[in-house]
């Protein structure tokens, strides 16, 4: 049978917590990180941001915004990228990649909001932006889009828990049918919202030309963020697939396994083109804005490293990998590309920000800030594992087979 050894929860046995509770090395490390994270969380919320973070008045946004928000949102772009390819462009052979991509996007966005609560001085007041909307603020647009898109992703993702819970609560099937009916609307709504807030994360920095180094500041920064998010989306689908094969291979059905190589090679090809375009955009922008003069400085070298080592190199590796049908190379390229996205967002948020300040007044994240980011990533991975162990993500539920192939 297709579902060889997959544990499918039944009415009698709804939970499959075994793999999460077994004292393996990975689980023990997970528990330790979660415990440490919990302690830091308590310190953060009882002693203030200053007690754990190196943030100061010059650097109000550091690791938490740079990694958890900017990288988190960008790397969750796989959701819109895959659903548009599969449902809008009709590439049905990506169908098995759509649900995992929607899941990781949903978890990514959910934990972006969770991480944001650490960074906000008044986390409980987050909904105030809807009551006192500052419509001139880019951040308002980001907040509105992220809130709406998180809802869209939740609805898109909700079919999986519905299929899980259907044996116990058949009422949820009504919701599942409804969501399946409006699926294409959700996808198009999702890509619209993604275009808006992916680019707006870049627009956040339009307001401070004096603080961000000219090689990274550009009136086109929203476009750079959007284009790079597409590459990030494709790369993350490949990278997540790589980790999923390592960790939860036994939960993949024959369709998923049969389609996965094709998904990797196709997404690698797409990512190669997008990264090439991104490289050209950035390079032409550098020339147009007369920034050649900065290339010989330290920041210039850093920028060239980003452009050649983390944009052009993965683009070429992707091209070679997809051309030769070399899945391993494509997976390596995806690591390189994802590292490049993180590199770029870190540069904009931290390295090239406040470039004019003397080094003594510059920011470096504290170990506790980094630990919170690690904690958040661990929570995502744990939630992902819980969902994969319980819900039909990597396999099709035998009761809900669809005639799409």
């Amino acid at each position, binding site marked *: 049978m297709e579902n060889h050894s997959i544990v499918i929860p039944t009415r009698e046995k709804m939970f499959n917590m075994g793999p999460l509770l077994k004292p393996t090395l990975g689980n023990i490390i997970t528990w330790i990180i979660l415990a440490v994270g919990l302690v830091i969380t308590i310190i953060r919320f009882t002693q203030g941001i200053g007690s754990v973070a190196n943030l100061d*008045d010059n650097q109000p946004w550091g690791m938490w915004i740079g990694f958890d928000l900017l990288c988190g949102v960008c790397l969750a772009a796989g959701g819109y990228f895959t659903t548009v390819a599969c449902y*809008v462009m009709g590439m049905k052979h990506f169908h098995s990649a759509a649900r995992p991509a929607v899941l990781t996007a949903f978890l990514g966005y959910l934990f972006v909001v969770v991480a944001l609560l650490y960074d906000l001085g008044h986390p409980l*007041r987050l909904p105030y932006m809807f009551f006192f909307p500052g419509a*001139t*603020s880019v951040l308002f647009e980001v907040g509105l889009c992220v809130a709406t898109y998180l809802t869209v992703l939740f609805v898109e993702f909700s079919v999986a828990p519905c299929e899980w819970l259907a044996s116990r609560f058949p009422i949820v099937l009504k919701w599942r049918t409804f969501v399946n009916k409006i699926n294409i609307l959700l996808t198009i*709504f999702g890509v619209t919202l993604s275009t808006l807030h992916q680019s707006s994360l870049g627009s956040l920095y339009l*307001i401070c030309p004096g603080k961000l180094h000219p090689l990274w500041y550009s009136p086109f920064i929203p476009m750079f963020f959007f284009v790079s998010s597409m590459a990030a989306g494709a790369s993350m689908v490949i990278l997540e697939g790589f980790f999923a094969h390592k960790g939860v291979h036994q939960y993949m059905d024959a369709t998923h396994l049969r389609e996965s190589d094709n998904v990797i090679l196709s997404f690698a090809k797409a990512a190669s083109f997008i990264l090439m375009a991104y490289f050209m955009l950035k390079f032409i922008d550098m020339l147009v804005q007369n920034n050649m003069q900065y290339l010989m400085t330290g920041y210039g070298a850093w920028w060239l490293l980003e452009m050649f080592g983390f944009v052009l190199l993965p683009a070429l590796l992707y091209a070679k990998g997809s051309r030769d049908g070399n899945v391993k190379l494509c997976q390596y390229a995806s690591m390189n590309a994802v590292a490049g996205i993180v590199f770029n967002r870190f540069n904009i948020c931290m390295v090239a920000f406040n470039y004019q300040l003397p080094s003594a007044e510059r920011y470096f994240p504290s170990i506790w800030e980094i630990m919170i980011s690690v904690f958040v990533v661990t929570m995502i991975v744990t939630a992902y594992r819980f969902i994969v162990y319980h819900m039909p993500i990597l396999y099709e539920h035998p009761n809900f087979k669809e005639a799409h192939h």
Partner: protein
Amino acid sequence: MNRRKFLTLLGSAGVASTLAQAAAPTEANAGHVFPYYPDSYGVLHDTTRCVGCRRCEEACNKVNDLPKPDKPFSDLSVCNTKRRTSATNWTVVNKYEMNGKPVYRKLQCFHCQDPACASACFAKCFQKQPDGSVTYDGTQCVGCRYCMIACPFYAPGFEYNLAWDPLVKKCTFCKPRLDRNELPGCVEACPMEALTFGRRTDLIKVAHARINENPGKYLDYVYGEHDAGGTAWMVLAPANKNGAPIPPDNPILAGPEFKQLGLDTHLGNQPMGELTYGALGAVPMIVAFWPVLFGGAYAMTKRREAMQQEVLDKTVREARDDVAFAVDAAVRKIQETEGEGAADRCRQAMAEALKARETAAKHGEDA
């Protein structure tokens, strides 16, 4: 459609107002011309008069009930280290080296005409008041600190060490004192008249008069007159006695001089918030156009699939007809030559063979 109906439609689409704006630019732009409040107040800081006595810091600390610093305000050595404003120090005086000579400058919120912080705040905490002050209402602050990212002058500070009600703090232009018709604490305390309070429009005249009446004393550039869209607090800097005089109001040439004072003349004449308006303006376009674009792509995909299916169905139908025709012809021939019985057996065998083939094909698709 008659003309009136056409105009009504235009009006409802907002097109008519756009056209009207294009026809009458001065009137249409009136909302965007600075200053918003022509009678608003400002302060002119003449750094040639400032001696770094820190009386303004002391007065600020006192009138705003801020916590007392570790070192007393009489200790002037703190001016030598570069400091910035913070949640507990709303104004600081720093000593800068300008062309080899010490110059003191007071730092505080510049109270921009169209403030970057107000533009950036997504909970509408900041407001430019008619009296010129930029006020902050902490009761609706979410604590995102985007105002601090946006502020080109590094003015706002944040209470990082408070767990329960951390807020952004900055100079208020002594708004409560202005409301009581009193001068801001720092202005009142200045013994050197380095700080001049007045209507902003008057202060600009005063500043240019000082520059013109004292040739060679001042740089011919009033910092804040146009920078970042104009600020209520403005700065006059001493001229470089050894260098050639700088042509008036030239931000590029005045740049290196003001940089020594820690001021950036390259912010441009537009309010900082305007830099984001292009991106924000694209939002409705994307909201309107993306669904059309992707909806169209979806429709094309569906149509193409339908067309492919049609071609496939037609091919299958034709093939089936061909087979049926051939079988029929063959059976008729057999009937003519071999008789009825042979024809029946032949028909049955052929039907069975076709059925077996079809089942095999179906299995192949499934696997």
